[in-house]
Structures are given as structure tokens and as C-alpha cells.
């Protein structure tokens, strides 16, 4: 892990290529507030397509978007062996024109911080990206994204901490926003923005993003554990202590050194993300996995990548056939059910495979679910959330 840390801490590969569009953000802010955590979803891809059409406004961006339809992706999030669901996941293809947002948020103490991250983070990032595009003349794409992410995380943290003051609908979470318990609530946040030319990964906490590229599993984030040497040093410098009590914990309490929320442990636990911006390498980049520690505790980066690669390869082969891998579903499933929009039936796969549009993809969803099943089979005790994003661009015919 230390090696990874150093790699990340030492900086990241970047590019000064310009031209990625940063589209309007405000109009989307109110849209889709639906809390979609805690369930596996098949996001209706027509919506994504429609959104992309609506947002395609000026020429240069249009060009990018045409060249780069939304990537195929799959999302799962299960409660598993825990009795509380505190994970949240977000997938917003085209959240900014030509850019696609994915996030995993693993809450602790209660679910409400992770929930608000799931609902708000992509909106905040879109707003910050729009502001950065409008206001700055900074030429360095990587520096700009780093700035966007840092500002977004700070805003998200402020919202999470301040959310109990807002008058809104009655909270449905376990703590019901009651002080002081509410102070002891936080969330990890690993966010990936897939742009036409770059991957931006921001992380805070112990969820993780892993890129599979050129056959190798490359972590794009480094878990913020209190005993990570640089984090330990930072905590000590701030006057904090790390106590080994069921693992390394800040003041014996929180088993991660950075998080959104957790105002009671500030300034020792901070919400600053570590951001990496890497250039996409067509031909090498295969896919990206974002997951909570419910997966990473029991499945290594390498095994996860092997599983996903096998699933995507399998899916690619199967696409050529007329097979129906879900044909043994019960009648209720194939005919749709109360949870009908979640059902990744054969037709969904066929649709997303054939029309070249991005969006929820059968093979990616299967990969995400297979990883989840593997984590459960390996006795993970935590919620498990997995996002798989296929980075292979599809030719548009």
C-alpha cells in the first residue's frame, strides 16, 4: 500500500490538452434527485441519451460527444451481512457534456452523509466544473480538474456537516439527524469522471478506484488509512493521535484518515481528496472499477480485474450469439415485477449492445454483480458496492 501512496502523493500524470467541454450544470441540478442508493439499477439509457442530446450545445463539445458516446457501465450495491445500508452509488453518464460521473460513497455512523453524497456530489462537481471552465484561463487540464475536485469535496463536506440545519423533509436515516450522534457520521467518497481524453479520480477515505489497463491492475486511489505513513504524519502534525484499537483508528475511533463529514474529528480527519488525472490510452485501457471496502477487504485488485475482464470478454463473445443468459429466470422476472426497472433482462442487454449508445450495460452489470457475489461468498461483513465502467470505446457504425 505504501508504494501506491507514494505514487499518488508524488503527483500524477497529466496532460495540458485542452478542448474538453464543460457544459452547463445548473439546469441539471434539480433533476433526478431520486435517491437511488441501496439498489442495483439499470438506469434507463434512453434518459441518458436524451440528456446528452439536450445538452449538446456547441460545436467543439458536440464533436467530442459524437466521438465519445457514454461508456458502458454496471452498478451494484447490496446490504450483504450488515443490517444497515450505508453505501451509496452514483452513475451519471453525460453529467457534463461529454463527461461521465461515477461515485461510490461508503457511509459510517449513519447513512445520511453517504446518501447526500450520492444525491449531490455530481451536481456539485458539475457546478464547479462549469465555474472553472467559465472563469479560468488555466491551461492545464489536470490542474483544473484537481481544483474542481478539491472545491467540490470541500463543498460536499460543508453540506454534509451543515445539512442538519436545513429544514427539509424529515430525515429517514437511523440517527434522524440528532446531535450529537449526527456529528459522528461521515462517508468515504471515491469519484471518477470519465472524459473524452482523461480519467479523473478523486478519493477521500478507504473506498477505491482501480484501472485495468494493458492487462495490469492499477490503483488510481490510495486508501486513506490512519497508519498510512504520510497520513499518520499529517495527523500527528495536526496534534492528533492514531490508536490501534481494532485496527488503526484516529483517536481510537475512525478507521480512516479522511472522510466527508465526521466534524468531531476535524482537523485530524480531513475531507481533502487526493486527485489523479490520467490520460486515457485507447487500446490499453480496459475498464475501471470503483468499490467500497466491502469488496476490497476480501478481493484483491488483481482478482477483481481478472473477474471483470473475463465477464466483459464473455459478454463480447455472447453478444455475437443469440443466447439468453437469463432464460432460467422465473416467469415473474421475465415479465417484469414490482422492481421491474431493475431487471437486466436479455432485451436490455441487446438494446444497449446494438445501438452503440452508452449506459447501463449487461456485461458490466454482470461483472459488478459477480464481484459482489464473490465478496459475499468470501464472507465480507460489510455493504458491498461496485461500479464497473468499460473504457473500450465503441465504434459507431
Amino acid at each position, binding site marked *: 500500500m505504501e508504494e501506491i501512496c507514494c505514487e499518488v502523493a508524488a503527483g500524477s500524470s497529466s496532460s495540458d490538452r485542452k478542448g474538453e467541454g464543460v457544459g452547463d450544470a445548473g439546469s441539471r441540478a434539480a433533476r433526478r434527485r431520486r435517491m437511488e442508493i441501496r439498489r442495483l439499477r439499470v438506469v434507463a439509457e434512453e434518459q441518458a441519451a436524451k440528456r446528452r442530446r439536450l445538452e449538446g450545445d456547441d460545436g467543439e463539445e458536440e464533436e467530442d460527444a459524437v466521438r465519445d458516446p457514454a461508456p458502458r457501465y454496471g452498478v451494484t450495491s*447490496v*446490504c450483504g451481512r450488515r443490517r444497515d445500508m450505508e453505501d451509496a452509488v452514483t452513475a451519471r453518464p453525460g453529467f457534463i457534456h461529454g463527461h461521465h460521473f461515477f461515485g461510490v460513497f461508503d457511509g459510517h455512523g449513519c447513512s445520511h452523509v453517504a446518501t447526500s453524497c450520492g444525491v449531490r456530489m455530481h451536481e456539485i462537481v458539475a457546478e464547479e466544473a462549469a465555474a472553472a471552465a467559465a472563469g479560468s484561463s488555466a491551461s492545464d487540464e489536470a490542474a483544473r480538474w484537481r481544483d474542481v475536485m478539491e472545491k467540490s469535496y470541500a463543498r460536499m463536506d460543508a453540506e454534509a456537516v451543515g445539512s442538519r440545519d436545513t429544514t427539509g423533509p424529515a430525515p429517514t436515516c437511523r440517527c434522524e439527524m440528532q446531535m450529537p450522534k449526527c456529528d459522528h457520521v461521515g462517508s468515504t467518497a471515491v469519484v471518477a469522471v470519465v472524459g473524452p481524453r482523461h480519467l479523473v479520480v478523486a478519493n477521500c477515505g478507504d473506498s477505491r478506484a482501480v484501472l485495468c489497463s494493458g492487462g495490469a491492475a492499477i490503483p488510481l486511489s490510495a486508501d486513506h488509512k490512519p497508519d498510512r505513513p504520510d497520513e499518520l504524519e499529517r495527523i500527528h502534525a495536526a496534534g492528533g493521535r492514531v490508536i490501534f484499537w481494532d485496527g488503526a483508528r484516529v483517536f481510537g475511533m475512525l478507521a480512516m484518515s479522511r472522510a466527508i463529514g465526521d466534524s468531531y474529528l476535524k482537523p485530524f480527519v480531513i475531507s481533502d481528496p487526493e486527485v489523479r488525472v490520467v490520460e486515457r490510452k485507447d487500446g490499453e485501457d480496459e475498464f475501471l472499477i470503483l468499490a467500497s471496502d466491502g469488496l476490497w477487504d476480501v478481493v484483491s485488485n488483481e482478482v477483481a480485474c481478472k*473477474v471483470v475482464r473475463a465477464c466483459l470478454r464473455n459478454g463480447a463473445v455472447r453478444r455475437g450469439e443469440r443466447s439468453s443468459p437469463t432464460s432460467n429466470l422465473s416467469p415473474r422476472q421475465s415479465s417484469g415485477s414490482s422492481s421491474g426497472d431493475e431487471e437486466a433482462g436479455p432485451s436490455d442487454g441487446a438494446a444497449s449492445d446494438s445501438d452503440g449508445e452508452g449506459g447501463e450495460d449487461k456485461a458490466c452489470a454482470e461483472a459488478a454483480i459477480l464481484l459482489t457475489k464473490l465478496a459475499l461468498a468470501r464472507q465480507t461483513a460489510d455493504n458491498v458496492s461496485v461500479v464497473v465502467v468499460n473504457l473500450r470505446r465503441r465504434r459507431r457504425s
Partner: protein
Amino acid sequence: MDMERGAACYRQWIAGQEAGLAELEAALANAGATDAELRAVVERCMRGYQDYVAGRRAVSPHDGTAFIAPPWCTAFERSVLWLGGCRPTVAIRLLYNLSGEGLEAQLEELINGLGPMGPLPVGSMGITPGQMVLVTDLHRRTLLQENVLSDRLATLHEDIADQPLFPIVRQRAAPAAQPRAGGGDCDGPVGPPGGAGRGAVDAEVDAAFNSYRAAMAQLVAEADDLRMATARAMATEILTPRQAVEMLAAAKQLHLSVRDWSCRAEGAQPQPNGPRVVPANGTSAAARRNP
């Protein structure tokens, strides 16, 4: 309530569980069984649950207290009971474990590239991604409902220190400040001498107790409904008939093994009138499964 009838009801159910397990296992062993046949087996099993619940309720429609920690269960069984049975979410945890069986071996094959053409690993039970989605959804709904019932049980527990019982306790305690001869245990007289006889103290206390008994009966009934609904959703809506048979068999296996082993560990065959040694007819779970 009638303890003998409650115990008989449970004994009958255990016997039914054993017979049911045999039937489920036979169905599994028959590779040629049609879906319709398997579905019929599942339906009989579900009806067995339903009959037990209904029979139990008939024994004691207005008193759920004996089912919370029934004397005819082993101490171990009692310790894992929730409102008179298993937690509904146990079914989901069971499925999570079943769905992972055989997965590692299949994954190994997939990863080692024994042909990308092969099917995706689904574990030996063959739970598909689509089914996982539905199971997770069921899990979430069941957890919420289970927590609601748990909260109501907690409230009922706390109600013991409240109306209507506590005022009576205070009222009776005040004049009885002088030392009591008989002590406070259940064997001694609690109420005034010459009261209502066995099983009753006096009308006022009875009424107070009965309100708790009835509230507990209501909770147990709702818990039974949730258990049934969860099992039924799993067995008839999410799983294929064969998978359902597999899961129901595993559930029965688990239940009977826990009963069997805890009976042996506790060195007795629990009976309604306290620990006893060997059942007269020799057909109990322990006797049958451990010759």
C-alpha cells in the same frame, strides 16, 4: 395458554419438517423432475409452514407470550428466536451463502480462460445477476419491516414498567410493606390468598397481563406473516422451482441440525414440563437423525 398443546404443535411441526426435508431431497435427487412437479413440492412446503403457524395461533389466539421463548425449544433454539421463529432476514442470509457455493471453482475456470464461451459463473445453485437484484430488493424491504416489528417489541418490553401493570404493582405494594413470608417467586402465592386459583392472580392483574399477552400475540402473528411473505417471495417469485426446492431443503436442514445438535448438547429432549430424557415414541428429531 395450554402448554401441552403448544408443545404437541411444535413436535408435530418438527416431524413435518423432517418429512418435508425428505420430500425436498427426493425432489432434488430426481434430475428429471419437471418444474410443475418441483413447484408442487415447494407449494406443499409452504403450506406446511402456513399450517404450523395457523395451528399454533389456534392453540393460543390471545396469548403470544409462550411463543417468545417456548419451553419446548432447547435453550439454544430459544436464544436465536425472534418473535416466535427465525428472523425473516435469515432466509436472505441463507441465500447469500447458498449463492456463493461453488462460485470460487467456477471463477477459477473463467479466469484461467477455459474458453470465453462458457457461461458466467453463477455458483452451483445458479443464482443469476437478475435474481441477485431481486434478492437485494427483498432484503431491503424485509429489513425495514423486521426493524419495525423489533421496535414494537422493544416498546412492549418497556410497557411492562408502565400502564396498566405498574400502577397495580404500586397499589398492591403499599399496604404490603410488612415482611412477606412466602417470598416473591412464582411458587408462592402472589395475590391475596384464596384468589382465582392456578394461572390467575386476580381479575385486575389478569386484565393487565392479558393486554400484554394479546399485544404479544399480535406481534407474533405479524412476525409470522413477514416470515411467510419473505419465504414465499423468495421461493415462488425470485427463485426457479429447483432453486426454491434447494433453498427450502437447506433451510430445513439448518433448522433440524440446530435443534438436533442443541438437544444433544443440552443432554435432554426438551419437553413442555421441563427437561426430560427420552421421548416415549422415539420419533423425535434427535432419535431419528442420530441412531
